């Protein structure tokens, strides 16, 4: 080294550089979404500064102008694929990422915008835009896993930030994330919430829904509405029967599966089974307000 002063400063700088080089690079990507899941990272107020001491936030457009090129150790992907351009972009993200983790219902199941998958998108464009020809959109909203290999899917609309920190810690430590696959029911029991469906007859998707939200809805005296998506091997047929017994019309039960996780396989099939059964009653209007959240 011939740079002036290099002899004196080099050891410290080299150590710092080596430490910085060992810090894993984190990237946060957005596709079609509401920004709520990325916001969960910024909502880690107590942990944010500690986290930025452990990882280099190399790409996070919502938070920073500075963008560092890949490769990235962990990429968090929010949002679903709804345009031809995004279908190509996700492939570039995959190539630049060691681990790719999807965050939220959009990235994991296509999101609420997957409600278009069951309708005619042309009609949708005409409902919203006077000149539909200006808009670039695909017929379906699809999850990231339909396009590239995904290393881990974190469910929830929105995700739980404690779970997000767990997943990040796990990948940084090189171990599998400790995210449980059981239903929301277990979280109600752990929380000591009396079952709203058994005790009050309130229709609840908790028995088929993936845990992670900490069973908030029943604690606020409403039924779960499935925003964390299907648990592993859910018995939707049995639950639909229970809702029917509680007096919820067939079309309204189908609609309950068709919200933010409408394109998650188990929920989609449950809705399709109900719609096939109730083909004659498809025109049935939705229930009004009242105590039933199914409406």
């Amino acid at each position, binding site marked *: 080294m011939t740079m002036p002063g290099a002899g004196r400063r080099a050891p410290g700088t080299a150590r710092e550089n080596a430490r910085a080089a060992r810090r894993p690079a984190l990237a946060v990507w957005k596709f079609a979404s*509401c920004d709520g*899941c*990325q916001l969960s990272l910024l909502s880690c107020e107590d942990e944010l*500064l500690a986290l930025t001491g452990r990882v280099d*936030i190399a790409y996070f457009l919502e938070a920073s*102008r*500075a963008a560092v090129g890949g490769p990235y150790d962990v990429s968090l992907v929010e949002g679903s694929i709804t345009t031809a351009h995004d279908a190509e972009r996700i492939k570039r993200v995959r190539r630049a990422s060691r681990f790719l983790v999807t965050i939220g219902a959009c990235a994991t199941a296509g999101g609420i915008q997957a409600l278009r998958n069951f309708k005619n998108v042309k009609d949708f464009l005409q409902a919203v835009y006077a*000149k539909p020809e200006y808009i670039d959109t695909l017929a379906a909203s699809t999850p990231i896993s339909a396009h590239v290999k995904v290393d881990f899917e974190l469910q929830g609309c929105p995700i739980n930030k404690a779970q997000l920190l767990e997943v990040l810690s796990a990948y940084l430590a090189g171990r599998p994330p400790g995210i449980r696959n059981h239903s929301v029911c277990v979280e109600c029991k752990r929380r000591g919430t009396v079952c709203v469906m058994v005790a009050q007859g309130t229709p609840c998707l908790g028995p088929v829904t993936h845990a992670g939200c900490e069973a*908030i809805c029943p604690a606020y005296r409403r039924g779960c509405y499935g925003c964390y998506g299907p648990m592993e091997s859910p018995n939707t047929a049995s639950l639909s029967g229970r809702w029917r017994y509680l007096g919820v019309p067939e079309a309204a039960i189908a609609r309950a599966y068709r919200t933010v996780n409408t394109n998650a396989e188990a929920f989609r099939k449950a809705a399709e089974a109900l719609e096939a059964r109730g083909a004659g009653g498809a025109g049935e209007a939705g229930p009004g307000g009242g105590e039933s959240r199914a409406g």
Partner: protein
Amino acid sequence: MPVERRTIKVDALARVEGEGALYVRTSRGRVADVRLRIYEPPRFFEAFLRGRAFTEAPDITARICGICPVAYQMSACLAMEDACGTSVDGQLRALRRLLYCGEWIQSHALHVYMLHAPDFLGYPSIVEMARDHLAAVQRGLALKQTGNELMRLLGGREVHPINVRVGGFYRVPRPRELAGIAERLKRARDAALETVRWAAGFEFPEFEQPYEFVALRAARGPGQPAEYPIDGGRIVSSGGLDLGAAEYGDHFVEEQVPHSNALHSRLRARGAYLVGPLARYSLNFDALSPPAKEAAREAGLGPVCRNPFRSIVVRSVEIVYACDEALRLIGQYEAPERPFVEVVPRAATGHGCTEAPRGIPYHRYTIDAAGAISDARIVPPTSQNQAQIEDDLRGVVQRSLTLPDDRLTLRCEQAVRNYDPCISCATHFLTLHIDRG
């Protein structure tokens, strides 16, 4: 004289909510073209709301925006209650306003500290800013956390709250449940006052615009105390408008432009207009709480503010107000007998308009006798501000032509971030291209 052609492009704007781009072209020292391009893919909420039950609108429309879900939930609830001929008042209304205060504190603290302040202090993000301004960053994070806590307490969680329904709430808190948050709000109010002083010390470009401000103004009877608009009111403007929400469509029109996935709103009579903190503040200064007014005066703000770069100070003043108002609402809270009022559907059209942190979202729904939605129209604040943002950019670029491209680009980005644009909301929204051609 040299013929100078410049193009400035920002393909992916940072520190805004959603995806947008900016393109500016100048020719012979004049601004030739300015485009704020919103390429956030469309999500078609208005289309898939058709056929859903009117009671589903708050949970569905919350998903338009993770930063201001309460604004969508509240506007949807007001519209449905309007359609059904019901109104929610008393302590239920107070709780809605309290929840909304949480969203204002959280969203404004996010914007002031994480998205906007780094522009004024010269950092790419809050992470680098924290190395030199740790105390300020910690203050901002604590403020944001208090807003989130208030949202969690009343709404169940901060992103997409689960406790909001047409007619009120699923569960209402007992007064003693609010005692803990009241203590935190007092500390937050002090932090908010400190935020106003901090932001007032930034350097602001000399730039004022002849905006037509559009905001809500709380209807009030004689003898009633003034109330800063949050959860409803009449739509008023500095150009003399004074409308009920139902008249919105008579005066505002949405137009589609080829370069954006977000529709541009215009006043039928006069074109571009401004919604958000500057409009709200300038039309309702008299209704601010005394500490918020005093903080504004100390910060050198008059009762009207036309410099969009100073919106960071106005947002900070609004955080003071939101803390004050939350404390007032908690102080007079008694648990209502029931958590909601019964809302019975009827075939009708309803309108709802409230004050999201970044301006008024307008909702209109038509429902049938059984409560099924047959038509939905949602106009987010950022669609309404798009034409005005482009006007600001034209003015900012014209006055800053001597700046080198990198500084001009930063100035343009800052001019967009003045609006705290929510691009995810507006798409039904952005990258900067400056072309000095």
